[in-house]
């Protein structure tokens, strides 16, 4: 592999990992609300969460651009907050990947939370644990395998994200050109099949590796041996 190709793989991993770190807290909160909450508009929330899965990715990418471009309100707010723009940067790529992977992340976490007996949380509360301690010591450990499954699926989805990314942050080599974008670009150029093939092979290795790692981890988790 060439240094460029290694750079592309490394950027892709960085973007996908950042996307997961960014998406996990809201995904957890959303999954918990969908699993345990009883409130009006739960169906609406479910629909909004599923939206990136059913919308054409280009539309999602354009929506992100409309909100976070350097001249838009969201973009200016982020720039004021962090001192750097998000559109057309690797952080933007991570944001696009996070949004696209969100439904894939939420679903298994929600299912895992639903599978945890709410009665165990009640038992923890009567033993003196407040809501948050019950969540941290009972619910989350028991839901950990589902959490991990969500993260692996989400990571894979983020790794392969294409449409929203190219629309939102374009395909800038060294900044936003992740695996999928690079493969697409190479396939457009004469003689690009060789390097594209290597990148494709590597993306397969990455995906399979993530799944194997998650399964090995799941067996060591507290709730995994049930």
């Amino acid at each position, binding site marked *: 592999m060439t240094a460029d190709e290694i750079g592309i793989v490394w950027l892709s991993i960085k973007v996908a990992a950042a996307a997961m770190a960014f998406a996990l807290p809201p995904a957890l909160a959303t999954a918990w609300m969908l699993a345990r909450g009883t409130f009006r508009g739960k169906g609406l929330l479910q629909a909004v969460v599923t939206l990136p899965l059913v919308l054409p990715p280009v539309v999602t990418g354009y929506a992100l651009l409309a909100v976070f471009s350097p001249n838009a309100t969201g973009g200016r707010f982020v720039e004021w907050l962090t001192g750097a723009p998000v559109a057309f940067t690797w952080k933007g790529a991570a944001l696009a990947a996070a949004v696209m992977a969100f439904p894939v992340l939420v679903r298994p976490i929600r299912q895992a939370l639903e599978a945890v007996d709410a009665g165990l949380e009640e038992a923890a509360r009567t033993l003196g644990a407040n809501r948050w301690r019950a969540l941290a*010591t009972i619910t989350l450990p028991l839901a950990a395998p589902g959490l991990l499954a969500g993260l692996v699926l989400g990571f894979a989805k983020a790794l392969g994200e294409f449409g929203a990314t190219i629309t939102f942050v374009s395909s800038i080599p060294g900044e936003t050109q992740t695996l999928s974008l690079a493969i697409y670009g190479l396939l457009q150029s004469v003689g690009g099949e060789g390097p594209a093939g290597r990148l494709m092979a590597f993306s397969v290795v990455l995906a399979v590796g993530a799944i194997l790692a998650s399964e090995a981890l799941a067996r060591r988790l507290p709730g995994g041996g049930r």
Partner: protein
Amino acid sequence: MSLEVGIIARAGGFEVRAAFSAGTGVTALFGRSGSGKTTILKAVAGLLRPAEGRIALAGRPLFDATAAIDLPPERRGVGFVFQDARLFPHMSVRANLDYGKSRGRGAPGFDAVVDMLGVEGLLDRRPATLSGGERQRVAIGRALLSGPDLLVMDEPLSSVDRARREDILPFLDRLRREARLPILLVTHEPDEILRLADSVVVVDGGWTTASGTVGEMFAGPELEAVFGRAERGSVLDGQVASVDEDGLATIDIGGARLELASAGLAAGRSVRLRIRAGDVALAVGAVDGLSVRNRIAATVVAIRAETGGPSAEIDLDFGGWRLLARITRRSAVELGLRPGLPVTALVKAVSVERAW
């Protein structure tokens, strides 16, 4: 330390109205399945919010609708033993037992509880590998070790098969004697009341309809609909005065003495006796030449003739205890029974049952 409950709670289109108090010792909430007993426990523990009313433990309000007080479960000091144990499956038995210790106010020692419940051999195991009875014992220990001011138990024996119940009952018995806190026990088994409870609150169709000591409840009319007539009778608490060589023991019950089979008894032990109403015969005047061992001098308090049937129930008093006899109406007339008449109640030694 006592619990005061006066609430209206709605759960699943069902209304529960509960008004009772429970002091130190075991108070049984007794009623058929679906009568609202568990709803009452959940309201006390803070797992269900009543619509109206007040719940106070040792004078401290846990819930008060008018004062907008509703303590969360973790601040109520109510230990809950669930019907299905609810041990944390991802933790060892030891970690389960330790879970509530951070609350640790006046909790009994770990070793003492482990010893009392006989779970020392299980500490490193996972809940999934335990039997139903073992799980329930661990659940009781876990609740005790959180140092509660009140322990509530929701049919702790119902998820355990009948043969295994005898494995747990002795532990509950010890708990009753050794733990110095009020215990609220939900049950629909008369035997569990006899064996474990000091007083009874009857729950019927969501309402608490009657309450009293175990003795009052077994002798009174409130429980007949639930128990059936054959269970009715007297419950007497006493102490073993002596154990004799011929296999009989003498029990001292507030001055009166009763004899019964001595198996498993030692002098000084406290016992609870149960005498079914149908096993008591009555005599007026001198009694002579009878094999019946127990002859109790008593006074007739009330006579209730059965409408449309041959029998009559006689309430008797001896030394402050209440004794219930069921005889035929014809005998009641022939003996000339009337309130205030001194009689001798005759009970065969083999008819005296021991609850503990």
